[in-house]
């Protein structure tokens, strides 16, 4: 049989026949995820069809995008999702449980080799554990829930090969931004990005990498299971690309050459070295999101903030990605470090990432965010500027009140 990429292997399993890039196929779907803001549209389509979820326990509703509700219409939409989930036996993750992608992985719903559809573009995150995750719109999601299946064109794959090791102060976010910068915003449109990271990177770091793949237009972002993921998950024997599999392109990144990176307004692929952006005044720092709101991200920020204070001219918003992250950060003292430095804590969820609540920006304001999009108007005013960065760099900016690196901060005494 012709050698297959990881995407071709996973989709073949779900199509019940071997498939290769370019083929249209109908695939069985292991799980369908619906977020609060899309739920009303999904339910309308189901109602229109007079259809019900074929496998209710394979459908999750997550209330995360504007939770707790910001106004009456959002509250009504969330109630609709909640009621539907309860009445139909679907899974329901309530206000404060966390961001959909983080929750589905924490709950073990996402497993290596599975096919997961989400009503959110960052569903590529599931590739962190070797699952084919992809985002779709409300109509597709509703039909997939009703049928337990969907149609897909098998994507061509783009291979990312890593060489060397990261230097100190450089992390998975810097690598992810470098990758998007090199590929461009549509450099992987319709493709599956397959990242061969060897045994490097924790599950959380792999989530950051897979999450940002959609910012190059990718349909899926798969990190070949290795390291922590290979150890903690039951990775099926077949779940690896064949030698000789066909790739549309290969991108090589030398980790040793990387330095801290930032995406500058208003596109994720506009990637610069942080060092060259020093001095830009920062009004708000957002530490959170499905890209970088995990315990290790809070740890990285706390390490910079320990013994320091947030600049009086800057607000630091911390929104853990889930209730479990929040609990763990409370237990190990990270939360106290952040609060003592002057951070403001929000309900686990999406926060201000897409500008709906918990910290929208005023005209002229500058925000350094650990999230995934810096589009015009994304976090509020179309006259605000968003810079995307790693948690360590974001924390340094909060202390300095301007764009800065952790090494720029005055040493902490005592």
């Amino acid at each position, binding site marked *: 049989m012709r050698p297959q990429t990881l995407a071709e292997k996973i989709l073949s399993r779900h199509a019940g026949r071997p498939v290769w890039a370019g083929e*249209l196929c109908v695939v069985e779907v292991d799980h369908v995820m619906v977020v609060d*803001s*899309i739920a*009303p*549209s999904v339910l*309308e*389509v189901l109602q*229109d*069809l007079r259809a019900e979820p074929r496998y209710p326990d394979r459908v999750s509703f997550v209330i995360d995008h504007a939770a707790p509700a910001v*106004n009456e*219409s*959002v509250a009504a*939409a969330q109630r609709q999702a909640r009621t539907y989930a309860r009445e139909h036996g679907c899974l329901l993750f309530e206000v404060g449980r966390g961001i959909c992608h983080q929750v589905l992985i924490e709950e073990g719903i996402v497993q290596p080799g599975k096919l997961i559809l*989400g*009503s*959110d*573009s960052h*569903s590529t995150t599931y590739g962190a554990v070797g699952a084919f995750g992809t*985002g*779709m*719109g*409300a*109509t*597709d999601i509703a*039909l997939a829930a009703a049928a337990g299946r969907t*149609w897909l064109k098998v994507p061509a794959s783009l291979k990312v090969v890593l060489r060397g090791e990261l230097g100190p102060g450089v992390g998975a976010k810097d690598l992810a931004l470098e990758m998007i910068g090199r590929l461009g*915003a*549509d450099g992987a*449109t*319709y493709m599956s990005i397959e990242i061969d990271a060897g045994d490097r990177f924790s599950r959380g770091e792999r989530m950051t990498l897979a999450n940002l793949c959609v910012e190059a*237009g990718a*349909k899926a972002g798969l990190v070949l299971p290795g390291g922590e993921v290979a150890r903690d998950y039951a990775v099926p024997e077949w779940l690896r690309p064949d030698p000789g599999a066909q790739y549309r392109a290969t991108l090589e990144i030398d980790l040793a050459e990387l330095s801290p990176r930032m995406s500058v307004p208003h*596109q994720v692929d506009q990637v610069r070295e942080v060092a060259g952006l020093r001095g830009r005044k920062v009004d708000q720092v957002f530490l959170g999101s499905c890209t970088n709101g995990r315990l290790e991200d809070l740890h990285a920020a706390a390490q910079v903030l320990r013994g320091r204070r947030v600049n009086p001219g800057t607000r630091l918003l911390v929104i853990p990605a889930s209730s479990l992250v929040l609990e763990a950060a409370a237990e190990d003292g990270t939360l106290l470090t952040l609060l003592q430095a002057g951070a403001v804590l929000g309900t686990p969820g999406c926060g201000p990432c*897409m*500008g*709906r609540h918990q910290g*929208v920006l005023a005209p002229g304001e500058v925000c350094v965010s650990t999230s995934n*999009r810096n*589009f*015009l*108007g*994304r976090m*509020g005013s*179309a006259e605000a500027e968003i810079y995307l960065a790693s948690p360590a760099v974001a924390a340094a900016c909060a202390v300095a009140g301007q764009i800065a690196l952790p090494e720029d901060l005055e040493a902490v005494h005592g």
Partner: protein
Amino acid sequence: MPAARVYFKDHINTDEIIPARYLTTFEEAELAKHAMEDLDPDFVRRVRPGDVLLAGADFGCGSSREHAVWALRGAGIAAVLAPSFARIFYRNAINGGFPVFEADGLEQVFAEGDEVQLDTEHGLLRRRAGGQVQFRPLPEFAKRIAQAGGLLEYFRDQARG
């Protein structure tokens, strides 16, 4: 005659097409009030029903919100032509029976406000004052969905068999 509404910027994203702050409804007329607002506050005022939106590459990148399709259609846009589309937007458009066509060389022929005629049969966008651009036909599967009026209708037709 319908006019070309021209935004030859690459990577116009769904936050620009319809900002997340307006995702509290899925009424097309309501969403239409804010279509393209952050990119061009005058967009809604200028568009007449039947106008054709011409854009740069990777149109519709970003979030999975189907509202982007609904907002444009609600605003009166009859079709979008661009060199390429982002994956989820393209899929949403096809599912909604909203015409989107890939075409190169638009910028060389069309300017804002040009009177145009969309000929889907021959795959042409014609400029009244002269000139035309050929666009790529929809894939067969997408054509069948478009003919049915959207994926929902297509599935219904199939069920009726």
